[in-house]
């Protein structure tokens, strides 16, 4: 029998063994085939003649010991990064969390709880639909505008609305131009929309000007055949875009001028809510609150759970008592505790964290206890104990490293469930006050508007919430998979 080098070198995986089997089987089928002329069957098999040489005996090779450069964390990370979806979600999550902290410091952000009023009419800007910028429309060069008294070095309040003609007041149409007519009343001349809302009274041949006209409704007269207002309210233009006359009452645009609904550059990207708060800032501020609750609950759960789990698992005399205590706590429905605690205590972030931690550590403790019981009496631990290792060291060095990955999994899953509990508590009306924005709060407020045109107030918080919870869930599960040594290749 020929000793094959491939066997000696220890490569027993399919690829390198195959030539041997192939060669052997080929020989069995055609035992008389000459070595010089390979049979047709053999052509498909890559042959390396060196594989068939006799291996030399080497004493130093016989003395060599096996060595594997296996590292647990390295393999875990490698297995994790082989899963593209999880890696993608991890990136999304990191960017998202980073952004929630950066967002308040970005230029042009509205403070989250600021109620934004219109600077002229002093009313809240409620339910403004999502816009990327505050620009409502753009006026071409040379558009005449009137100015509204507004003291601001940068912005001017402008409109091209000159007067409102009351109902059934007669005016003269001097020019007919389809959708618009030029009209004169007293000394003023301006443009009136000839549309369905105004219902101007027109003669049989409206092109035969001038003629008397009127409407059964109040009609607006504009300086130019375009409505440069936001539902009759002044718009804002930069003073540098305008040629303002001496009295400061009239102005003409000197270039293409964007007209803003507000004297701010940034729009409401997610719109505003009923009381005129910027939903974009609210969502990120709420995300901060919810993430804070999630992380705190996960940390406290891990801290208390690990501590008690280790004591429970390691001290045999305590096991029976602790198991009974566990049975009692585990049998109280979590919902009841959550509701009771958040009702008895004042609603605040601390209350929520406390109420959630009160029961959630039990699961972690039981989990740690089970793991500890399994590995407590493994031989290496017995040996360690016999050698006189102190208990804290046994726990820190021998037991805990085994649990790190599973503990991290549970923490990753605790965050979305804490966020979900927060939404639940807010839903039943015992959550945070509206003055503390949180995702649960925003969803609960938006819920009432789902079937209206303001449904964006529910959609944006739910998207952010779902991205966060799904990411944590997927990352946690993938990490648990990759932390399992069975999946390390």
């Amino acid at each position: 029998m020929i000793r094959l080098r491939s066997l000696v070198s220890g490569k027993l995986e399919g690829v390198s063994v195959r030539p041997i089997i192939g060669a052997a089987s080929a020989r069995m089928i055609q035992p008389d085939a000459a070595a010089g002329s390979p049979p047709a069957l053999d052509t498909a098999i890559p042959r390396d003649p060196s594989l068939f040489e006799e291996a030399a005996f080497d004493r130093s090779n016989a003395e060599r010991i096996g060595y594997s450069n296996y590292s647990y964390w390295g393999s875990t990370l490698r297995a994790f990064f082989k899963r593209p979806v999880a890696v993608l979600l991890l990136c999304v999550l990191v960017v998202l969390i980073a952004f929630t902290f950066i967002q308040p410091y970005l230029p042009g952000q509205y403070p989250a709880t600021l109620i934004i009023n219109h600077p002229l009419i002093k009313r809240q800007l409620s339910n403004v639909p999502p816009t990327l910028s505050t620009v409502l429309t753009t006026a071409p060069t040379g558009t005449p505008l009137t100015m509204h008294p507004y003291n601001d070095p940068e912005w001017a309040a402008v409109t091209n609305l000159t007067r409102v003609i009351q109902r059934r007041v007669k005016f003269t149409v001097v020019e007919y131009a389809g959708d618009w007519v030029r009209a004169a009343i007293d000394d003023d001349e301006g443009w009136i929309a000839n549309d369905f809302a105004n219902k101007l009274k027109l003669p049989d041949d409206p092109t035969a000007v001038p003629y008397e006209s009127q409407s059964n409704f109040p009609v607006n007269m504009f300086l130019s055949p375009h409505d440069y207002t936001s539902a009759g309210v002044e718009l804002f233009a930069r003073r540098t875009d305008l040629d303002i006359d001496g009295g400061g009452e009239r102005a003409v645009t000197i270039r293409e001028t964007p007209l803003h609904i507000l004297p701010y550059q940034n729009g409401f990207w997610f719109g505003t809510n009923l009381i005129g708060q910027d939903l974009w800032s609210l969502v990120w501020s709420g995300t901060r609150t919810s993430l804070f609750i999630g992380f705190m609950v996960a940390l406290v759960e891990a801290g208390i759970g690990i501590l008690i789990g280790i004591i429970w698992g390691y001290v045999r005399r305590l096991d029976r008592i602790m198991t009974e205590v566990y049975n009692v706590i585990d049998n109280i429905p979590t919902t009841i505790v959550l509701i009771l605690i958040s009702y008895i205590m004042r609603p605040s972030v601390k209350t929520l964290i406390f109420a959630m931690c009160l029961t959630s550590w039990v699961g972690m403790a039981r989990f740690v206890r089970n793991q500890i019981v399994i590995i407590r009496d493994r031989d290496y631990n017995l040996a360690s104990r016999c050698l006189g290792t102190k208990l804290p060291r046994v726990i820190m060095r021998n037991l805990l490293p085994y649990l790190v990955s599973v503990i991290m999994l549970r923490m990753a899953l605790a965050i979305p469930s804490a966020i979900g509990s927060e939404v639940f508590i807010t839903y039943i009306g015992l959550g945070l006050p509206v003055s503390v924005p949180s995702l649960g709060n925003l969803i609960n407020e938006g819920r009432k508007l789902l079937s209206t045109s303001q449904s964006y107030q529910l959609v944006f918080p739910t998207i952010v919430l779902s991205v966060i919870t799904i990411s944590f869930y997927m990352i946690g599960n993938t990490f648990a998979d990759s932390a399992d040594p069975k999946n390390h290749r």
Partner: protein
Amino acid sequence: MARYIFKRLLAAIVTLLIIVSAVFILVRQMPIEGYFDNFDKLDANIVRSRLVQMGLTDPIFTQLRRFLSNLLRGDLGTSARYSVGVPIGRILLNKIPVSLQFGLTSMALSLLLGVPLGVAMARSQTRYKARLWDAVGTVFIVFINAVPAAVYHIYLQAYGSRALHTSMLFSREQPLTWLLPILSMSLGSTAYYAMWLRRYMVDELNKDYVALAQAKGVVNRRVLARHVFRNAFVPMIQYLPTSLLYTVSGSIYVESLYSIPGMGGLLVDVIRRQDNPMVQILVIIYSCIGVVGLLLGDLLMVAIDPRISFAKRAGAR
């Protein structure tokens, strides 16, 4: 066996006693204002006499003893604030059947959907190309588990009622309005059944007896149905009694969204109105469900799987 059940029941009673006492003491920490609708306008004497009338001024252990002895005589007490003076038993008798109907239907639906989904997911593991079901099921399970229930219930209600052209709220006369709440309630447990069944079945599929059966030439379908499924379903059996019993408690979300007059919102409602007798009774009911469900689940497992017995318990090292 009988001894084991007796011991379990004894432990359950002790557990219940502790839970009830804890909740009893807890609800008595609530502010006095909560017991009155118009506390600010009331005279201090009236407040005092009403508190005495409700028995709230006695020492807490006297109250507890009174409550427990009444309970033993089968007297659940009367509601103090929810609907004043009405026996709690009668309130519950009106509410429980509604929740029970919805709960049982949705549980049947979720078993009907979840079990085939779990089997399909596990089956697609045995093939090398068609992993479609596994992917579909995983997306569904991740979605249901990760997104808070409130969110998808809201969307299902809004878009479902629009698609079915029905009212958003439940109405007893229109059977079409029952569909969405039942579907909503069953989504969570469908994902749960599918997830665990898939996991248990995949675990079983990797065992040697499956390889042996396949080597003997047993058809794949038969291996799954006769061997894998039966073994994988045993651990799931344990949770069935609990979920069956929990249908009594209703779903807080769904019942309040569709305004179904069931048990769902009752607990939240009575806690906010500080109706202590009702809070206590409800807590007892919920805890009983948990304890009894667990016991029944264990017994059912013994009944179904002859390999499991309580007679000799494997001792931990």
